[in-house]
């Protein structure tokens, strides 16, 4: 009798010991690596919202963690640290993390990696990005309609294809309603530097721009526009609260759906390496409410957005001419994805030069 009790107790103990770690291991650890601070209220902030959304959507099933302000030159260690601390799924959210992600992925074949905005994949590395240029095309239309001075200021970060295609889409949108529109571009060579961004905004306003748009992550340009009584577009997140009188709309990156979907796939064991490039239709690119504009412009913006969703409108619908007048996309055709992904030329009408 006694021996049965002890055996039973022993078995229970064994079960308890075995179940403890097993339950902990069942929980999927999801790590995020950000290039900026989570408080940038832009790109990294928006990614962090998706981390929080994930924790809320799958409570008990996932555990999330992040590293912020990771310099690109120092990112391999940060990514490896996450992999070593038991993460089963890791989002590396900046282009510059591409090679380090692949290197670490090779060392940890069972860990799944999701790299934002890159183009190299592996068996356990997926890539994802959003068609921001669709949102920029809508913004271009709004700016073309609203600019009184006929000059729009553009604060740009780095001349990579994502940024260049954004500038082109914006310009094509603006030209479609005002063929004479002028675009002034300032390259600030940073993703996040409120000081530099504000300086650039002031310079552009001083040069006669009455609408600003940006491909950098802080709300500083928007605030400069607000102070000067001019208009501007937000970036990455809805920045209305920073500039309630200036923000026209904002191109919001909504990663929530994607992040949750990928975590689910890992939990279900159905995760596969793939490339994902979603736009307005997929809910990855969201336009914040159209504000500070008359109803007819609002209607045009709404109509353009719906057109893109329905596939009636494509920002790079031919004919698209390059700066030198040569044809990039023939009439009746649309730019194929690889062309947009590798864009290193400006459309006609942009008065700026790209290093080749």
């Amino acid at each position, binding site marked *: 009798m006694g021996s049965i009790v002890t055996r039973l107790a022993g078995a229970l103990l064994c079960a308890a010991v075995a179940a403890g770690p097993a339950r902990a291991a069942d929980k999927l650890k999801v*790590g995020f690596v950000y290039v900026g*601070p989570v408080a940038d209220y832009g790109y990294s902030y928006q990614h962090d919202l998706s981390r929080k959304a994930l924790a809320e959507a799958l409570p008990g099933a996932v555990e999330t*963690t*992040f*590293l*912020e*302000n990771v*310099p*690109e*030159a*120092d990112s*391999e*260690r*940060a990514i*490896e*640290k*996450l992999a*070593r*601390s038991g993460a089963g799924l890791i989002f590396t959210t900046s*282009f*510059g993390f591409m*090679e380090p992600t692949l290197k670490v992925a090779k060392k940890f074949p069972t860990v799944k990696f999701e790299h934002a905005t890159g*183009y190299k994949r592996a068996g356990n590395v997926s890539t994802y990005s959003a068609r921001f240029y669709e949102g920029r095309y809508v913004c271009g239309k709004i700016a073309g309609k609203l600019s009184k001075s006929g000059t729009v200021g553009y604060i740009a970060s*780095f*001349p*990579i*294809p994502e940024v260049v295609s954004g500038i082109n889409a914006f310009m094509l949108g603006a030209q479609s309603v005002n063929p004479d529109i002028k675009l002034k571009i300032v390259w600030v*060579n940073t993703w996040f530097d409120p000081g530099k961004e504000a300086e650039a905004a002031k310079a552009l306003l001083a040069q006669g721009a009455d609408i600003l748009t940006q491909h950098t992550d802080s709300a500083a340009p928007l605030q400069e526009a607000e102070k000067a009584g001019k208009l501007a577009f937000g970036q990455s997140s809805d920045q209305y609260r920073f500039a309630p009188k200036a923000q026209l709309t904002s191109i919001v990156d909504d990663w929530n759906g994607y992040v949750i979907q990928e975590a689910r796939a890992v939990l279900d064991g159905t995760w596969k390496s793939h490339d994902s490039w979603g736009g307005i239709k997929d809910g990855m690119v969201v336009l914040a409410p159209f504000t500070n504009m008359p109803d007819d412009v609002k209607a045009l913006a709404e109509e353009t957005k719906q057109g893109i969703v329905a596939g009636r409108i494509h920002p790079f619908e031919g004919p698209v001419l390059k700066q030198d007048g040569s044809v990039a996309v023939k009439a009746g055709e649309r730019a194929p994805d690889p062309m947009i*992904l*590798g*864009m*290193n030329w400006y459309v006609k009408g942009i008065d700026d030069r790209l*290093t*080749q």
Partner: protein
Amino acid sequence: MRLDLLPRARRSRRLDLLAPALAFLAAVLIGGIAVAALGVPPGQAFLTYFVAPLSEVWSLQEVALKAAPLALIATGLAFCYRANLWNIGAEGQYVAGGLAGGWVAVAAHGSQGPTAWILPAMLLAGTCAGIAYAMIPALLRVRLGVSEILTSLMLVYVAQLLLDYMVRGPLRDPQGYNFPQSVSFDDAARLPLLMAGESLHAGVLIGLVGIGLAALVLTRTLFGFEVRTVGASPRAARFAGFSDARLTLAVFAISGGAAGLAGICEVAGRIGQLQPEISPGYGFTAIIVAFLGRLSPPGILLAALVIALTTIGGEGAQIDLKLPLDLTRAFQGLLLGLVLGADVLTRYHVRIVPGGAGAKGIP
């Protein structure tokens, strides 16, 4: 009431050694209070910051990899700072070294024939580029009397933007979708790993040899004596016939060369290609390391290890304890402030002067 700092008649050797340790202890205590205020048990945070990184082979390698460039650059800077010359531009000299050495690797990419020359050529090019880049502020100072603090700092941005231009233009990978980066270097252009499958590479050894050499030069040669004399007493140095101009060029060459070498070691070691950003601020952090190490090579080595340790421990704290990165940075700043403050207290004692009027001493 006023506080006066009066020079101590006698410097205690024991106090000299004890001061940084006490400063470290004070920093840990203050850091502990901050951690507790954030709702994390201080003991646990201490383990994550300072013990966990030393308890795994992997993270030990990471500490060494992070400390090596810091120590190498800081040792070079120590020559400048000891001679009262303020080279703030090691970051630029590092980038110049990485760019020049990386250029050799890109030029040799895919070449047929012997490859044994590539790596030495890269290291040489990197070191020479660092020296050449440091010569600009040095010559401007010697010839025209321009402040080397300003020129060396401003040249950092020039070097960064030059690298940026090169990886977007001439050195861009033709198959890279126009993204700003060079081709990945061939194996012959990479520093070999010290252990297969691990991350420690030969750059760490190069760094150690460099620091050892610098220590010998500083303590055992006439030149080292000259550097120390000029720093301690410029007038005496002039009476001894030491030339200001020659010394300026020499210490800038040493610090530039060390930074350039660190740059190419990082590019040929860890990174393996040229990209717009090849430094997480090593050239600036090295200034902190140089002073934390009191401008002596063994102290610098120790300081570099401490900074590397807190950086890597800080990542662990972000992941495991959800402590913000800002805390790590605040702690590193706190540590520097306390070490420098402790140094002042070993050399001076504080006298409280009631009322303050008419008191003597250093105001």
